[in-house]
């Protein structure tokens, strides 16, 4: 009886959330009612203990630090220098600036933990020159949005930091496991842009002569000085984690500190900049962590009601084999991505899915990588697509909504392709952590 009650939590949650009341309080309120009906007033101390469980979690403390690193980097001026450096090399290629966009987004995603930071930073730099050179509008829109979304999977990523505690697995290991899937995605994007430039009418032409005149020695020197700060930042965060030198939380703090130093170094640091970055950090982290609280309460009550068994019974009644269950879970995450933000998807579904995935004998780290790749699509699937909102904030008025939607489609498909590849070849995710940390 109680178990069946647990399955009602989802339709109720969907109805309430779509009424437009803040997701956090919807999740908390529903947890309270279902909890009271099943456990009586005992639920009240239980939910405040869920709050303590989030509030004394050392690993989750990395989230605001990564966010601060991102808000600081946005103001550091690093994007401009990266853009100048990379476009020096890609100028001769067809659709070269679109390639630049993906490469820049990859580097910025590897420096910061937040999604969308790269989109605005890179978009502001790359959209005007692409428009000027007559790039296909849909290509511009799709590339900038998909590039921004790369921050979800490319480590460090707050999504991964939150996924670890939600699934009960090591964040450090998962961060390392997502390196190759992340690089796979950005390579697939670059490949697509290059291939497309040959099949497409009105492809974007290479830059003509001006940059071919730069002598190679000067080009190399500019590249070293331009890339050095990013390389150092990437090492400070992921390098220290990989070497076991620092915990992810410490690595996040080192990265945040580095991003402040970089801003000072580029001469863009003022107290006002610091204050703006700090206030934006508070806004994003509080919003995100509160959803986390609501999600943990929701899944706590759901699991307390025996929801995990109920889900399993439902799945076995449908005669689903292990792989069918896995595909079904990923598909749920994909569908949810059209309407929900990543944090809600992750915090509602992962605590429920991961015990079942464990029981079926799948590797939890590998499933984590697949799941994170899957919710990356939530960033670009309308109608709830942060990627589109950000783009509209920076796109020129000539770019229509229809072009934006059309631009997203190929990248959505490419993401699915990459998920299938990692699903068929688990070693893409699992080889590096096994090599570096050893077996689970």
């Amino acid at each position, binding site marked *: 009886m109680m178990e069946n009650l647990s399955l009602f939590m989802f339709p109720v949650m969907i109805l309430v959330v779509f*009424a*437009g009341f803040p997701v956090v309080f919807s999740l908390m309120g529903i947890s309270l009612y279902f909890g009271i009906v099943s456990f009586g007033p005992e639920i009240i101390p239980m939910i*405040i203990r869920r*709050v*303590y469980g989030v509030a004394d979690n050392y690993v989750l403390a990395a989230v605001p630090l990564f966010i601060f690193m991102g808000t600081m980097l946005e103001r550091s001026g690093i994007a401009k220098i990266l853009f100048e450096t990379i476009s020096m090399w890609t100028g001769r290629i067809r659709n070269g600036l679109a390639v630049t966009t993906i490469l820049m987004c990859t580097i910025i995603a590897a420096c910061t933990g937040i999604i969308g930071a790269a989109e605005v930073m890179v978009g502001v730099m790359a959209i005007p020159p692409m428009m000027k050179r007559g790039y296909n509008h849909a290509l511009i829109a799709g590339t900038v949005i998909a590039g921004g979304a790369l921050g979800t999977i490319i480590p460090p990523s707050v999504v991964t930091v939150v996924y670890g505690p939600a699934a009960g697995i090591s964040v450090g290991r998962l961060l390392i496991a997502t390196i190759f899937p992340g690089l796979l995605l950005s390579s697939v994007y670059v490949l697509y842009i290059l291939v497309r430039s040959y099949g497409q009418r009105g492809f974007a032409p290479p830059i003509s002569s001006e940059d071919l005149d730069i002598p190679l020695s000067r080009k190399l020197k500019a590249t070293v000085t331009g890339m050095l700060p990013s390389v150092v930042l990437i090492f400070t965060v992921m390098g220290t984690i990989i070497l076991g030198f620092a915990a992810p939380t410490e690595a996040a703090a080192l990265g945040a500190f580095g991003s402040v130093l970089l801003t000072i170094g580029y001469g863009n640091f003022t107290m006002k900049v610091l204050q703006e970055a700090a206030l934006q950090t*508070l806004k994003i982290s509080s919003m995100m962590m509160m959803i986390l609280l609501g999600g943990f309460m929701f899944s706590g009550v759901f699991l307390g009601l025996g929801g995990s068994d109920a889900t399993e019974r439902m799945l076995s009644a449908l005669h689903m084999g292990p792989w069918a269950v896995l595909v079904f879970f990923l598909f749920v995450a994909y569908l949810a991505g059209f309407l929900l933000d990543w944090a809600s998807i992750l915090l509602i579904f992962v605590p429920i899915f991961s015990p079942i995935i464990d029981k079926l004998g799948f590797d939890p780290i590998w499933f984590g990588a697949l799941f994170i790749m899957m919710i990356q699509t939530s960033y670009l699937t309308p*109608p709830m697509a942060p990627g589109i909102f950000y783009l509209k904030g920076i796109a020129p008025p000539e770019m229509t909504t229809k072009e934006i939607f059309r631009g997203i489609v190929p990248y959505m498909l490419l993401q699915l392709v990459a998920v299938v590849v990692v699903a068929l070849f688990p070693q893409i995710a699992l080889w590096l952590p096994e090599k570096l940390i050893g077996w689970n």
Partner: protein
Amino acid sequence: MMASYVKLIDDLSGWTGKWVAWVIIPNVLALVYEVIARYILNSPTIWSYEVTYFLYGSHFLLGAAYVLSVDAHIRIDIFTSHFSARTRAVIDLVGYLILFFPVVIALVYAGGQYVMQSFEMGEKSGLSPWRPYLYPYKAVITISFILLLLQGIACFIRNITLLARGERP
């Protein structure tokens, strides 16, 4: 009078937000110091672990009221954004009454009890050799929910005034 309450609480939340935002700086510095102390000075601190989550938890929890005051908690408004402002105000009022107030009041109440209990027991953290008292942190958590409740009441009143007068105060 209601309007002055709303103004007072909005100011309070804005002020807390502005100050709490700075907590991220000691959070970064404490961790950087810990890494330096461990590898360069060869003497890791005993407080880094606890101080880190004290600062992180205080940061996002005390910030929640500020985020509510600027209406930045995520809403899925794809269906409701086409509704009139009045309809949305009605939805919000119902949401506050049925969802927000019961759960936030429960959190304030249960949290308050835990603070008293923690204080009377002299509860200490068992997560590190430093073993700090836990009641101050638990008090901060409860204060966060009190601030959130006050801001919720302010938002509730704002919606009522909107319905009554057809405009925002």
